[in-house]
C-alpha cells in the first residue's frame, strides 16, 4: 500500500512538474497573473475606494461577495462542530470524566495571562481599525481577539472564559457579524444600488462616494471580525471539552 502510494504520488509530482515548465518564472512582473485585473486594482484602487491597503480594498469591496460567503462558510463550520460534538443531557453518560482536583494555581501563567489578555485585545481592535492603512483587517483582528480568550482558557480554566463570555453570547456574536455584513449589503440595495455597493451610503453618511466605500469596507470588516472572533472561541470551547463545556484541557 505504501509503495503503491509512493509511486502514485511520484507520478502526480512528475505530471505537475511537467505543467510547471509552462508557468512563468518566479517574481516575473510580466506574468499573466499580474497583468490584467490586478494592475487595475493597484492603479485605481486608492482612487476608487480611498483605501491604501489594496488587499483590504479588494477583499471587502471588489470581491465582497466572495468574502461574505467565506464568512458564511466559517459560520457553518462553527455550527457543524457544535452539532457534531454536543451531547444532549439525556444521552450524556454520567460521570464520564473523573473530576480531578483541577484547581490549577500556576501563578506565573495566570499572572502573565492577566497582563497579556488586555494587550492582545487592544491590539486586535487596532488591527481591525487600522486595516485600511496597514496589514490587517477583519479576519486577522478577529483571530487575534479570539486567541485572547483561548489564552485565558489555557492558563485558567474553560469555565473562567465561559463565565465572562457565555456560549449563548458567543453564538449570538457568530450570527451578528454575518448579519452586519449582509445588512450593510441590503442597506445599499434598499438605497437603490447593487448589493454591497457601498457608494450608496454616500448620502446617508454625508460624504463623497469614495469615502462611503471606505466606510462601508470598515463596517464590513467589523462584521467579519466579530464572526471570526466568535467562531474561534466557539471552535475552541467545543473541541477542548469534547462538546461538554466543562473544565476543558
Amino acid at each position: 500500500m505504501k509503495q503503491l502510494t509512493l509511486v502514485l504520488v511520484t507520478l502526480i509530482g512528475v505530471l505537475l512538474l511537467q505543467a510547471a515548465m509552462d508557468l512563468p518564472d518566479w517574481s516575473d512582473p510580466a506574468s499573466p497573473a499580474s497583468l490584467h485585473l490586478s494592475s487595475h486594482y493597484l492603479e485605481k484602487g486608492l482612487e476608487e475606494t480611498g483605501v491604501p491597503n489594496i488587499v483590504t480594498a479588494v477583499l471587502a469591496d471588489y470581491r465582497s461577495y466572495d468574502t461574505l460567503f467565506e464568512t458564511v462558510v466559517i459560520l457553518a463550520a462553527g455550527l457543524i462542530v457544535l452539532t457534531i460534538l454536543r451531547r444532549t443531557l439525556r444521552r450524556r453518560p454520567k460521570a464520564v470524566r473523573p473530576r480531578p482536583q483541577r484547581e490549577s494555581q500556576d501563578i506565573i501563567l495566570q499572572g502573565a495571562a492577566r497582563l497579556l489578555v488586555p494587550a492582545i485585545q487592544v491590539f486586535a481592535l487596532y488591527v481591525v481599525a487600522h486595516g485600511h492603512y496597514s496589514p490587517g483587517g477583519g479576519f486577522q483582528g478577529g483571530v487575534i481577539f479570539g486567541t485572547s480568550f483561548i489564552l485565558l482558557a489555557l492558563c485558567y480554566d474553560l469555565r473562567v472564559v465561559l463565565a465572562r463570555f457565555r456560549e449563548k453570547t458567543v453564538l449570538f456574536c457568530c450570527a451578528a457579524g454575518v448579519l452586519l455584513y449582509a445588512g450593510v449589503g441590503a442597506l445599499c440595495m434598499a438605497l437603490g444600488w447593487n448589493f454591497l455597493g457601498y457608494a450608496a451610503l454616500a448620502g446617508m453618511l454625508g460624504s463623497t462616494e469614495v469615502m462611503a466605500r471606505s466606510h462601508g469596507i470598515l463596517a464590513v470588516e467589523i462584521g467579519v471580525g466579530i464572526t471570526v472572533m466568535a467562531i474561534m472561541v466557539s471552535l475552541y470551547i467545543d473541541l477542548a471539552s469534547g462538546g461538554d463545556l466543562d473544565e476543558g484541557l
Partner: protein
Amino acid sequence: MDELLPFIVAKYNYWAALILLLIGLYGMIAKNNLMKKVIGMTIFQTAIILFYISVGEKKGASIPIILEGHGVASSTAPVIEAVAYANPLPHVLMLTAIVVGVGTLGVALALLQKIHRVHGSIEEDDILEDLRNRPE
C-alpha cells in the same frame, strides 16, 4: 543538464510548493491514523497557499499598500505604477483560504473526536474491526 539547472533556479517556488503538496498527499493516502491524515490535509493546504502567494510576487515590488495613500504630500495626482506593488489578488484569496482552512480543520477535529467516542480509536484498522464486530 544545461536546461535543467535554470529551470530549477527560475521556478524553485513551484518546487517548494510541489514537494509540500506531495508530502501532504502522501500523508492523506498512506497513513493509517486519521489524525495524521488531517495533518496531511493541512500540509496540502499550506502548499496551495504558498503556491498562490508566490505567483503574486514581483521582482523588486513592495507589499500592496499604496504609499501615496499615507498622507505623502503631492501637488499632482499620484501616478501609481502597478509594477511597484505585489499582486494583491492572491493575498486576498489566500487570506480567506487560511481562515476557511481553520474552519475545515475544526470540523475534521470534531469528527475525529466523535469517531473516537464511538469506536474508541482513530486508527483505520481498529475502526474497521470495530465495525465488523458490531452486531447489526
